[in-house]
């Protein structure tokens, strides 16, 4: 729609249409320029770690004096990454799945209804996001341990759900608000009950919302050290626990092996993310259709 957007996939038979869109205003220039700068710096940041993770010796020079892949093997070995990575994936997927399942219906209610006590409910959902885990981490771990849910995988998943569910709720609410309620009405007139309304109509329309929420939760979960650590045992440590231990724990480690692990972390997340983005475009299907009209 915007006149300044680069677009037009069809080659017009007449050269005229579409030409005006390519004119770059200062604003456009600023936006693309800023973006390019950001990307360059970002690339530098990532590249420096990646290079280091393959570095033999890298002292005071532009590039390492030699390259090796040994660090990966070492990190893999030392931290038992086979198990750690698989635990991480299990925990991440479980937390994302469960929190979307629990959170989406709740955000639906918050988006569509106003009811007495809504503010209190909102507060209850806001607090877990804001409170640092140290306020509630130990009592929570105690509680879970008491019921023999922790230490272990179950405990890790449950503990990570505490901030994740509210995250989903908070992100999804505006998405649901955007959907025209009459589409829902139509689905119900077609005989869809709440469950199927969710799975068949809302879910596809909410894909960008679900994706955003899921990515958010995924990143939070995979990066959540405190709660995971407090509820994990040696067989349910996640990657971030390994990483943080490597980074902050006692002992002397080759920086390269930490970097190698960080790269593994990044690659794992990237795979998850790229898979996610491959299958869903973070723009609503509705407007994807409309974009064609552009």
């Amino acid at each position, binding site marked *: 729609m915007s006149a300044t957007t680069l677009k037009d996939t069809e080659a017009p038979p007449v050269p005229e249409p579409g030409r005006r869109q390519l004119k770059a205003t200062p604003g456009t220039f600023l936006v693309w320029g800023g973006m390019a700068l950001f990307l360059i710096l970002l690339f530098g940041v990532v590249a420096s770690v990646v290079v280091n993770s393959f570095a033999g010796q890298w002292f005071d020079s532009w590039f390492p004096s030699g390259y090796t892949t040994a660090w990966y093997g070492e990190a893999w070995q030392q931290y038992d990454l086979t198990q750690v990575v698989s635990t991480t994936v299990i925990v991440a997927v479980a937390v994302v799945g469960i929190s979307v399942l629990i959170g989406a219906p709740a955000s639906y209610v918050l988006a569509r209804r106003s009811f007495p006590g809504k503010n209190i409910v909102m507060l209850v959902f806001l607090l877990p996001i804001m409170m640092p885990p140290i306020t509630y981490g130990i009592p929570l771990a105690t509680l879970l341990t008491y019921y023999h849910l922790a230490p272990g995988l179950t405990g890790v998943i449950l503990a990570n759900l505490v901030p994740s569910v509210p995250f989903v709720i908070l992100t999804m609410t505006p998405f649901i608000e955007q959907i*025209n309620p*009459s*589409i829902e*009405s*139509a*689905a*119900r*007139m*077609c*005989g*869809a*009950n709440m469950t*199927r309304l969710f799975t*068949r*109509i809302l879910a*596809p*329309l909410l894909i960008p919302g679900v994706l955003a929420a899921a990515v958010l939760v995924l990143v939070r979960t995979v990066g959540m050290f405190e709660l995971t650590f407090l509820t994990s045992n040696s067989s349910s440590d996640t990657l971030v626990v390994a990483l943080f231990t490597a980074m902050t724990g006692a002992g002397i480690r080759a920086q390269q092996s930490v970097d190698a692990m960080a790269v593994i972390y990044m690659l794992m997340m990237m795979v998850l993310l790229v898979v996610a983005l491959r299958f869903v475009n973070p723009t609503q*299907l*509705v407007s994807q*259709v*409309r974009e*064609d*009209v552009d």
Partner: protein
Amino acid sequence: MSIQATSFKTLELEHVARNFGGQAALSDLNLNIRSGEFIALLGPSGCGKSTALNCLAGLLPLTGGRILMDGRQIDRLVPEKRGFGMVFQNYALFPHLSVEKNIAFGLEMRRIPRAEIKTRVAEAIELVQLGPHARKLPGQMSGGQQQRVAIARAVVLRPPLVLMDEPLSNLDAKLRLEMRTEIRRLHQSLGLTTIYVTHDQEEALSLADRLVVLRQGEVQQVGTPQDLHEHPANWHVADFMGYRNLLDGVVEHTRGGMATVSVAGTGITGATRDPLAPGDAVKVGIRPEDFEITDASGPDAGHTRLEAVVEVVEYQGREFAVEARTDTGQALHIRTHRTAEAGQRITVSAPHERVLVFASALTAAAPVPELQEATP
């Protein structure tokens, strides 16, 4: 979970009411719908037609009254359990589903076997003439095409009751006629009970078994098309039934169902069903097509004659719509085969029995069948 798409015998609306934040959008709607009936809701924009349908569908909670199906109260049932079909005024198509899938949606919800879904969807698409567009998404279609998808989506379910909210408003005249025929055919062949909102008088008259005329959320009259067309209960209904000329006047005298009214000094005689007395404020209703431009002048026994100056002439196919103004400043709408020219002085006449006289006060409307007085 199972959808009660079973048929019913009667559907009773008792004092159904709906307010939006204090303002009544629908008040005290009483209606007895028999199975297989075709009921049209008519009324000016914003009178509560869509609200009525939404209440019936269960999409809006009632703020008053109840709905009974075969004596069983259903107004607390969620929409999907009522099993009604609905064509929404704004279509409300699922933007992420293709035409086919939009139409198939309801069938899938009812767990109809795949093969049957396929044939029924194909039929429905055929019905609304969207064959070449079956795989498009709603956003890729024209307004009328979308509207047709909405119709197909509702009727493909063959629900016991189908609610249609101005389903043909965005279709061209020809398609409208065709669709109208199809809707009637479906109604008859499947025995669908239909409640139909339309702003098209002709559509209402031609399709419906009974009409319900609403005004500001209140029912004005319920009756058969002929009833309403020939004996509108009050001037508002008359207005809706094509009595475009509604002239304010005062009763001069009445005699056996006929009243003579003074409209800005001119006497007009017409039939009335209201109990009127001389001096009452009334509205005189005359249809544009009941006026005739005559060459004759002077009084005539069975006719009221008025003189007027033509102001606007509009070509409307074979007929002309003429707007004229009497010497007393009263505007007249006339539909005629004879052309006239702006500025021309003409005499129009209307037969007495075609002129209707109504009390001005709307509450004095004649009692309406099946309907208690609407006094909120």
